[in-house]
């Protein structure tokens, strides 16, 4: 455990290991998303109530999952950065924030598009859409705070604190908003509980969720690598790498 943490301190080690890992995650993401999309859009049966419009679920639900998971990962990497001063963790948190905001936006937008055939309106102040909207504001706050500091170290620590404060608040916000107004259908997708939809609809959704997670890991690996090169541009191993490439 400690040996692993100590290895994580070295951006060079992470750069080497991520080079070996990232093709696998990219391949998994590509295969899963393509399979899930074709299966979900073309072969899964149409919903008996919502017809074909339910197929938005194959984008909406994975994006909503990621939107929440990314915020939690951001808080965890923030904690790791604050406690062990591991720079890689902060680099990962930096690249996660815009990705999480984008996923939140995709979930909101697909939810709005889905609202037109099901509710007859683009926007309803229902519990889940509202808490997603608040999550988007939390992401924008973290991104804005990181951008506001002149010194990178202060920016990193401030963003870490805000992500941790946010992650404590997310469940409180979620449940208070749910209490405030519940109009949405009950949760459609649970890993442990009873499956609320037939297998032919649920399997492609599972594939899409896994595909989105692989995409998230792959993208974070790739973008963290660029972030390492940017921040360590003055180090010798980066210069040697650049010379080799020339």
């Amino acid at each position, binding site marked *: 455990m400690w040996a692993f943490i100590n290895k994580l301190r070295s951006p060079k080690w992470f750069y080497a290991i991520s080079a070996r890992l990232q093709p696998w995650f990219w391949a998994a993401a590509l295969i899963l998303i393509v399979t899930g999309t074709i299966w979900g859009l073309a072969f899964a049966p149409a919903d008996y109530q919502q017809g074909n419009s339910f197929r938005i679920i194959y984008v909406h639900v994975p994006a909503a999952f990621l939107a929440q998971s990314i915020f939690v990962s951001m808080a965890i990497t923030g904690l790791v950065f604050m406690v062990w001063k591991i720079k890689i963790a902060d680099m990962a948190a930096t690249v996660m924030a815009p990705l999480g905001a984008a996923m939140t936006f995709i979930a909101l937008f697909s939810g709005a598009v889905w609202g037109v055939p099901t509710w007859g309106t683009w926007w309803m102040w229902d519990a889940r859409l509202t808490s997603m909207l608040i999550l988007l504001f939390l992401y924008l706050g973290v991104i804005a*705070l990181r951008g*506001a500091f002149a010194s990178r170290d202060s920016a990193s620590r401030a963003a870490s*604190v805000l992500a941790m404060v946010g992650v*404590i608040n997310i469940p*409180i*916000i979620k449940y*208070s908003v749910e209490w*405030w107004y519940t109009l949405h259908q009950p949760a459609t997708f649970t890993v442990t509980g009873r499956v609320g939809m037939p297998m032919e609809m649920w399997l492609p959704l599972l594939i899409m969720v896994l595909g989105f997670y692989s995409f998230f890991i792959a993208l974070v690996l790739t973008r963290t690598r660029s972030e390492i090169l940017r921040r360590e541009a003055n180090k010798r191993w980066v210069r040697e790498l650049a010379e080799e490439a020339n």
Partner: protein
Amino acid sequence: MTASENSLNRAAAALREEPGDGLAVAVWATLKRDLLLMLRRRSEVLNPLVFFALVITLFPIGISPDPALLAAIAPGLLWVAALLAALLSLDSLFRADYDDGSLEQLLLTPQPLALLALAKVAVHWLLTGLPLALMAPVLGIMLSLPAGSYAVLAISLALGSASLSLIGAIGAALTVGLSRGGVLLSLLVLPLYIPVLIFGAGAVQAAILGDGVLAHLAILGALLALALSLAPLAIAASLRISING
């Protein structure tokens, strides 16, 4: 032994003392100092109250002077306006201390920064949240808030604004080192205010409908207990970031 060495020794001896001895003194001194400073800058105490009254005046003008309509939206309006007034006053919470360097002295004291920051937040609540809560029923009359909900309005605002001050202080501490932190501060803090707003306005709404008010007030109290235990740590960490950055 020279005079300067003498005073140095005395300072070292003071530092070696049990931190418990000085803690109550330090917290009390911080409370007293902040209260005195705020009472000397009366406009900073009065401005949020004037802002509160002004915003409430805008709504009948912008929407409709119809008492029935106003009564229906009054709980939410009063709560949102009070929340914005409290938010407005946050920027000055640490600003003056940051500018004149006394915040750095606060960081250098041997006492835990979280508790000293808590004392500062308590003063902020005492001179912002509490007056807003006492003033809200008067504005409630002007919005023809139904009778029987005035006490609940004041109590819910007094309880809720304490949480608002604590959560807001995290944002104020994070942005105090930035030259133009005002708008950023509201962007950081407003999403975190939403649970307090839900249960605060919900309490007043429940009082009007004749439902049980205690459940809402109990949740407001629970939120306050949580904020009271965790927020000071976040405030202290944020102040350290802002000062050392």
